[in-house]
């Protein structure tokens, strides 16, 4: 396993593997138009760690995360999460794994506009038919500073507040892993700093496992470990890298570096708009 190439983090003596990919690949399309988004990646994620997956647009970092989180099916290889092999599960069981073992934080918050902040937070527990542990709920709500926002609907909250509700939603099920996809992509830098701090805090104080996909070297610097992707492969695996180390790593992939953080998203949006018009 590729984990042999890197030392175990010193402050994580419990090296329990909570999620892992084994020779994972994901191919979109077939024949001439086939795209290998992820190409034979093997990686272990340890309990209680904060892992960032970096890489430029199209490097396969989001696809890797989607496969690890059971959102997407793999084309080859195996994925394990909380002791279950995801690739062997049917849709019903896979859905249950996502509900009970995975928490998600998205770039665009993805709260349900018709539900209040509290209802949004409790949605996964609701779907599972579980009642929230009141102490845990209070702890999370207080930690995220949402106590006076519980009755508000998403449209009445700022971006930072919405993302904090999303983080609360992800934490409340006590999932095996929280996956965050560009969680700061739609936030201004001060709010982004705050959100990253909250994620870091959940690892440090609650012992939560977090995997975060990001373009941003600064965001990645909050992580214990940084995986660098390029062209669908794992090109680097850094332990608590210094900022210059990160910069070097990302530049080494030969693509646009940290400066592409915001433009990627916009570019996609712009392209989409044109698609619609052209259609």
């Amino acid at each position, binding site marked *: 396993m590729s984990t042999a190439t890197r030392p175990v983090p010193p402050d994580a003596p419990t090296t329990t593997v909570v999620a892992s990919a084994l020779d994972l690949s994901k191919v979109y399309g077939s024949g001439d138009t086939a795209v290998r988004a992820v190409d034979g990646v093997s990686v272990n994620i340890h309990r209680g760690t904060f892992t960032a997956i970096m890489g430029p647009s199209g490097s396969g970092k989001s696809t890797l995360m*989607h496969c690890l989180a059971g*959102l*997407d*099916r793999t084309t080859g290889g195996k994925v394990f999460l909380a002791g279950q092999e995801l690739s062997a599960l049917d*849709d*019903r069981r896979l*859905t*249950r794994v*996502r*509900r*009970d073992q995975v928490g*998600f934080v*998205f770039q665009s918050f*993805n709260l*349900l*506009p*018709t*539900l209040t902040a509290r209802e949004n937070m409790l*949605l*996964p527990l*609701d*779907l*599972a*038919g579980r009642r929230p542990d009141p102490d845990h709920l209070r702890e999370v709500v207080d930690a995220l500073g949402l106590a006076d926002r519980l009755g508000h609907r998403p*449209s009445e909250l700022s971006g930072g507040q919405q993302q904090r509700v999303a983080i609360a*939603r992800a934490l409340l099920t006590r999932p095996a892993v929280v996956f965050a996809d560009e969680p700061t992509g739609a936030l201004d830098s001060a709010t982004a700093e705050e959100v990253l701090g909250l994620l870091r805090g959940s690892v440090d104080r609650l012992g939560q496992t977090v995997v975060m996909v990001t373009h941003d070297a600064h965001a990645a610097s909050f992580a214990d470990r940084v995986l660098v992707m390029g062209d669908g492969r794992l090109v680097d695996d850094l332990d608590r890298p210094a900022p210059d180390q990160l910069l070097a790593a990302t530049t080494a992939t030969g693509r646009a570096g940290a400066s592409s953080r915001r433009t990627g998203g916009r570019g*996609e*949006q712009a392209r*989409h*708009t044109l698609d*619609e*018009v052209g*259609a």
Partner: protein
Amino acid sequence: MTSLRIALAELRSHPTRPLAVVVAVAISVAFMVASVAVVQTEFHASGTAMTRQLADSDLVVEEYTAPAADVLTAIGDVPGVATVEPSYRFGARVSAGERSTTATVGTVGADPRLHPAVLAEGRWPSAPDEVTVDAAAVDVLGVAPGAQLVLDAGSGKRPATVVGRTETVAGLFGGGNVELYAAPAWFDAVGGAGGVAGTYLVLAEPGTDPATLVEPLRQAVADVVPDAESGSVDVRTTAEVRAENASSALEGADLMTVLLMVFASIAMLVGALIIANTFTIVLAQRRRQIGLLRAVGGSAGQLRTGLLAEAAVIGLVGALVGVAVGIGVTAVVAAWSGSIETGLQVSVPGTVGPVLAGVTVTVLASLAAVGRAAATSPMEALRPVATPEQGRRATVLRVVVCGLLALLGTGLAAVALNSRAVGLGGELVLAVAIAGAAALSVAVLGAAPLYVPVLVRGVGVLNRVFGPVGRMTTAQMGRNPARTAATCVALMLAVGVTVTLQTGAATTERTLIGDIAERFPVDFSLTRDDGADIPLETVEELRAVDGIERVMTLPAGRADVGGGYLSTVYGVEPGAADAFLPEPLPTLDDRTVVLSPREGLRAGDEVTLTTAAPDGSEGDGASATFTAVISHAAHGNALLTEQAFTELFGGSNSAGLWLDADPRADAARVVADVSSVLGSGYLDVGVYQQSAEFAQLLDAMVLIATGLLGAAVLISLVGVGNTLALSVIERTRESALLRALGLQRRQLRLMLLLEALSLAVVSAVVGVLAGGFLGWLGASALMGAVGQEEAVLAISWPSTLGVVAVAVAAAALASVLPGRRAATAPPVAALAVE
């Protein structure tokens, strides 16, 4: 033209988006086209069938008084006449063993050019005891050539042999009648040689213009008829008769077409609501594209033109599909009824009209949505998240207008319902009721956006059973109240109109039949028309009839009951008679007579009864005077005690027969069974048969109308499916999120199912309540207008619940495809969609 080009490009790349509009327009247009074409085809067929009897004759002589033999001689003597044959048409009771039916017997003469039908097998009758049958007779009697029949044309039973079978000129309005043909000799035997034929078919000598024979024929026939009747001779050329038949058939068709167009308009109105709704949603999806067009310099006017052109193209496509479907439906109906043989009648106005209507309605229905879309400012449209904004001002206006209309409607309805108290009568009641119903309908439909969200929340309480899924469904539906309301309004309208009709008919039926049952409490009240006693075996056979509960023979005779009223007199045993009557007979002794209420007769009046012969002619003239007791129990007859009857008629008999039928029995079958036991020669003064026929007629009308309104229900369900499908598209991201968070596929499908069911239940409840009230209002007003007493509210539960069940089941069905679409999308793919 740029705007049209953009419109067409849009349609090419997203052909399924306006699918609901195409379907809604197609159904309405198909309905209209088929209505017109089916009616015209069928009337054409029946017109053809009518003139078929005239065969290849040149002239038709009609004269209904002189003996056939005289008329035939007179016509035959006119120079230029080659052949003349009588064309009798007799009604007869025909039986083959156990089975019997009524039939028309027509004449088939010697000349093949005057044969009234086409022979399918066997030969034409020539002897007086031979007949042909048609397909309907074969169906009803189960006979084939060679079989023996018994015919009774009112002058006793005569055996006849079936020698052939004729082709039936069928058609929706012509079918079902049993037609037999016999040689003129049969008619001579039945009616006597001096019988009257009525109609005579004439063939002119070759080379003679039939028109020149009209006057000589009239003169010749007039000479042989009694002077007083000479004006009744009618001679016309066959061509003239055909033309008249055709034009009168067309008039009938016009009336029916107008009636069907009323239903078509309802379907179109429901369609318009669906179309308006669909355009609103489709254009909301295209806000960004529209904003971009505005940003690059498109004017609001250009956009409007383009979008309206798009609507027109969609409407045209739907209308053309509708024409094709409508003609197909007509062909199927005509093939089924047999009218296809005389040709499909698809007229240009009957096709172009519906197409124009379809396109116009589509464009008009799209106006509001197009206007809103075109007025979008470029910045607003390019804003990333669409927040639906609800206009508060519009709500206030709606409350005020709908509130006033509801008040007005309630007031008018109250006046119509209490027409007696406020001294309103005749057609004015109907006018007030119609105005009230219109005001209430508009108020109920217009106020839908106000109360539908409340009702949806109410139904949401039930949805809670399904836990978070149910709660989320209710929250989703509250999100776009305007759209939810619009969808509901369409379904509400369809359900409401159907239920109005059903309740109205049921109320009318209950009221009128209740009235009939009160006036004529004895189901069958029979006497032999020859005054003979009822045979004992007939009584036993009637007792065995399924659905007949009680049979009683009683003395019966005919008498003048004063004031020139000739009626049947029964001698009744009060105890035995009570079983047949809803309430016990009033005090009856040997000096009283029970009579039905009639003008100028008061209880306690002295009435003299004078006996008459069974056929109503003067009898032996015995008379006696009685004190009148007035009761509906007499059901139009006179009731005496058995003792008084014996004294008056100089003896007793058992010529009268009362039957009591089980009210739950199938009336048509009971009537058929009873009449097949009795055969002819009985006089029935009970009204069981009439009320059964009346109820059957109303039921059939309601069934047909419900079927016709089915088109409207269908269109509104297209709307439900469409609303769901578009919500699914709109909520792709949310659905994906929920799936990512652990919502199972079946839970996602359940959400849509609950949404569909909530829509259907809310619409059905409002539709049934409003429809029930309006139906009752309409029936009450109708009863008031015809001077009937209080209308008795009756709801036709089987058909009303049937409509509700169809609406709910179909709504559930409508959620299946959108549900699959939503559930099969993988969470990642859906999250990626902007």
